[in-house]
């Protein structure tokens, strides 16, 4: 392609960086765009993979075969291509909008579900700083002083997706499912927030990056500093994402499929996407807050930098470490789903308000008292 001047398109592209004045701001802007694109691209790969795992793992547990047919020619790939086939089917399926649905909110609800999940994923620190051409680039899409509050605030917006989906479908099962789901999400948000306060007290910051940097060795990990917090967080993780054993929102026996009963094709897939992305985000958060985030156990960051000779390789190791820790929690999600039966709705509510909340409050007060005694001057 010739642009009229004696410059090919590739030469034009190569000359672009020279036209821009490279200071911290422009580097940050480009880095932001690149990081955001990689993150969104990566997160979109999650659901097919997780759906495959979620079919193969219970098959293993229940001594069945699970999907094992779809593949290329003679390579079956353990049925991995089943997810690809399902995705194609979901996208090209005919879309049916129920009569009497509120058209605008019916179409908007999946967006309300997906948008907060992706936004929250932007605040997770995925690794230590990269060093590109002398510029430090933090490995989270946005680094905030109030990262903690940002995550809690944005994830609390996910309720709207669920409640609007149920209401706009004009179906009583959808409405009941959405009321259950949103009441559950609001109830468990409180102990979830409570469980994170001791962490803030211990590390003295709301910046997730600094919390990870403080967890240099195993004994400094949040899970040992605040074990009760971790237990509460782990239970709330399941309730927040409406996953089994707290998946009453879509209890098939009672509510058809809950708030997404009337959804099909790509919009149904969007709810899946939202659920899996928020599972991933909460897994990352659990790893970040309680298990040292991108810190490699037993090997301090400085040692890796000294061994590898470059902070960028250490950053890569950090990303791998965080993803490894997060995958463990994703595994726990699936493991629990196929192990524990579903709770009853009143059991769920009394667990949340009568046990989790008081334990969470006692945990906050207890940690504060212990810290005040330890730090007394």
């Amino acid at each position, binding site marked *: 392609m010739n642009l009229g001047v004696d410059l090919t398109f590739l030469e034009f592209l190569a000359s672009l960086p020279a036209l821009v004045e490279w200071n911290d701001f422009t580097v940050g802007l480009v880095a932001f765009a690149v990081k955001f694109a990689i993150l969104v691209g990566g997160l979109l790969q999650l659901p097919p993979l997780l759906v495959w795992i979620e079919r193969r793992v219970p098959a293993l547990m229940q001594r069945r075969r699970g999907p094992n047919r779809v593949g290329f020619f003679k390579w079956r790939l353990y049925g991995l291509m089943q997810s690809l086939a399902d995705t194609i089917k979901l996208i090209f399926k005919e879309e049916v909008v129920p009569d009497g649905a509120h058209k605008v909110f019916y179409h908007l609800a999946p967006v309300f579900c997906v948008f907060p999940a992706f936004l929250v994923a932007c605040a997770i620190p995925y690794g230590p700083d990269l060093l590109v051409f002398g510029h430090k680039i933090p490995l989270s899409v946005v680094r905030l002083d109030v990262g903690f509050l940002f995550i809690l605030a944005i994830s609390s917006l996910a309720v709207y997706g669920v409640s609007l989906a149920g209401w706009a479908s004009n179906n009583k099962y959808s409405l009941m499912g959405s009321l259950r789901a949103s009441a559950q999400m609001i109830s468990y948000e409180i102990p979830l927030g409570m469980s994170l306060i001791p962490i803030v007290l211990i590390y003295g910051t709301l910046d997730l990056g600094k919390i990870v940097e403080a967890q240099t060795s195993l004994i400094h990990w949040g899970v040992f500093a605040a074990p009760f917090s971790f237990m509460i967080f782990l239970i709330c993780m399941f309730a927040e994402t409406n996953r089994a054993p707290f998946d009453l929102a879509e209890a098939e026996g009672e509510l058809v499929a809950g708030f997404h009963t009337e959804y099909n094709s790509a919009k149904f897939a969007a709810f899946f996407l939202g659920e899996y992305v928020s599972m991933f985000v909460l897994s990352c958060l659990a790893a970040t807050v309680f298990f040292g985030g991108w810190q490699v156990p037993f090997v301090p960051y400085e040692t890796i930098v000294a061994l590898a000779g470059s902070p960028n390789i250490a950053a890569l190791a950090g990303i791998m470490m965080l993803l490894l820790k997060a995958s463990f929690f994703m595994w726990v999600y699936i493991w629990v789903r196929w192990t524990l039966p579903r709770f009853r709705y009143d059991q769920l*509510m009394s667990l949340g308000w009568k046990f989790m909340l008081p334990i969470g409050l006692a945990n906050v007060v207890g940690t504060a008292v212990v810290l005040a005694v330890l730090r007394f001057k």
Partner: protein
Amino acid sequence: MEALNLMPEILFYIISGMVLVSSVMVVASRNPITSAIFLVVDLFFVAALYASLGADFTAAVQVLVYAGAIVVLFVFVIMLLNLKPEALRGFRFTVGEALVLLITLTGFVIIATELAHAPPDIASPGNLGAAAIELAGGNTFVVGMRMFTAFLWPFEIASVLILLAIVACVMVAKKDKKSGLKGHIQSSGGN
């Protein structure tokens, strides 16, 4: 690079434009659910306004408390009551409504003239820029210190006030004991 220096100002106008549009939509839309959702959008952009002024903590709390909790309850109530979209009434006002409109417009004009005479940098953080916030120990630290020292008394009074409101709501919602029916609040929450 001229355009980059103007970025905060451009951002300010975009965000405040969104705040204005969504605020108007809250009162102008006929469907109560639409109003509630526009209220969420409104609160979200007000939070963005706080964030653009460097008040990250206030912004996060704004979204967490108002958009994430309070309006959710509004939406719940509207859904359960199943309110119908209000019919448009055209431009007919009662005397009271006209009075309210008049007072509002007067207030708007007063504020607008005051703002026109205010120093030009009223919309910018001024000497409370990012560096000054960092020096003071960060947003959250400063807000926490002020709230639990200088403003402890008003802060505690406000929480007592909210507690009173909750108790009052429970009293109003509670059904008469003599009727033999348990109130809604007592029966929810299980065994």
